[in-house]
């Protein structure tokens, strides 16, 4: 099996530069940093997948914290306190519809998510695993995605 892997990072600076995928996500400027990096990641990677496993070891805690602490709290900020919104916005940018699994298990989150990815793949599905990791002190976000390549004979031969 060939596994595609792609990683990216995003710096949440103001004012935000308009991303290439902005026409697909009209209110892109309302997204939090983690949502930005997930969309950027999946658009850059352009992998094929039929389910999306989103592992957020730190959940949406930075967004929670910002929402609770900042004056003038807004609805659009509140919805980003839910981890699945990141996946939803990425699917919007990609024009896709698929099952999403937002999994967390403390320090075991990555292990659990990888296990789920392998199991889904073994069942014949084509999952994408996205891991988001905010570097909170620097408003910087990193994320990576892995997805299985096509299982054509040619692809297998090329991989071998």
């Amino acid at each position, binding site marked *: 099996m060939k596994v595609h892997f792609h990683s990216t990072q995003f710096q949440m600076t103001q004012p935000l530069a308009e991303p290439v995928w902005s026409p697909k996500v009209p209110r892109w400027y309302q997204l939090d940093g983690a949502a930005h990096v997930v969309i950027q990641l999946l658009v850059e990677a352009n992998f094929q997948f039929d389910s999306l496993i989103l592992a957020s070891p730190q959940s949406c805690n930075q967004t929670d914290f910002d929402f609770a602490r900042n004056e003038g709290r807004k*609805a659009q900020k509140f919805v980003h306190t839910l981890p699945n919104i990141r996946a939803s916005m990425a*699917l919007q940018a990609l024009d896709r519809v698929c099952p999403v699994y937002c*999994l967390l298990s403390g320090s075991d989150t990555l292990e659990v998510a990888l296990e789920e990815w392998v199991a889904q793949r073994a069942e014949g599905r084509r999952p994408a695993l996205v891991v988001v990791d905010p570097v909170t002190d620097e408003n910087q976000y990193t994320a990576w995605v892995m997805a299985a390549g096509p299982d054509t004979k040619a692809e297998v031969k090329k991989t071998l």
Partner: protein
Amino acid sequence: MSYLNFVTVSTCHGHGTQKLVEGILNGCGPQSRLNDSESPFFSKNDSFPSALEMVRSELAVQITEMKNQGLPERGRWGVILASTKGIIDDLIWNTEDYNFDTFTPILDEIKAIFPFPIERSLTVSNACTSSHAAIEMAQSWLRRNWVDHVFIFGFDKIGTFTLGGFQTLKALSHDSVVRPFDKNRNGLLLGDSSASCVISREPSRDSFIVGPVQGICEGVSATRPDISGINLKDCYQKACPETPDLVIAHGTGTFYNDATESKAIFQAFPDSRNIRVTCSKWSVGHSLGASGLIDLGLATEIFKQKIIPGILTLQESDLEVSENLVRKTEKFDGDNILISSLGFGGTCSALNVRKAQ
């Protein structure tokens, strides 16, 4: 195929699925401590019990009930927490203690109190469809032969953070009455609840069959579903290939949610005229991550008591399902219930419950 071998709930109506139905039949509305409170939002409020205290007490009661039902002690167990924000209100207001993990303390409590060894554990946080997603994950674990039983606990503390968030969204009912599918529906109320269930590979006494959960994320909007209902319709059709006798709708009483469910029910089943539609949130409030499990508890009582509680706040509906809505208590002799769920980010899901033969 998987079996629902146990389900219980703790809502504003008390503990247990029977109390849930009694409360709905009596017409009680959501009684969250906060919905009627004058407490200012966005601040820690010490007059409310901590979320972790609530978790401890409710878990203790629910697990005791589970043990009393004589579930098999043999077998490998997994546990899943279904939650949207965990115990965030215990942590978010205190910078010093804020440790950026609002779920693991709940899982740790489950592990500490659970009477059997646990093979694996996980939190699923798929917004308001978390219960459905947790059941789907449990079914995967059973199918892969990773475990023999999965205990699922659904919980979200309705605190100032969550309530304040829904207030900013203007999603709360203006007059503290939730009117699902009504022409004059104007929003939801939140409800403190928790629920748990056991999904197993093998049936036990009084089991129910839970069909494969069908969930999808449509990525249309952060705050509302695709109002065409097309993706929810697909979930319904896959979850329930035969026309259900009853749909327990998500029924939040919000404009888009109810309209979408109405369309999806009509599109999914050609003979939709015979489907009855009811819901619970007008009576117990919206309990977020636990809401799907609460409706699962309601479904089992509907099978047992052979009655469908009506939506007592409903006055006039202009939606497609108007004629299908259960307004007063009705008899039920069906064997096929569909439970619908929607959440922020266009996540939608459905599952089918049937009596085991």
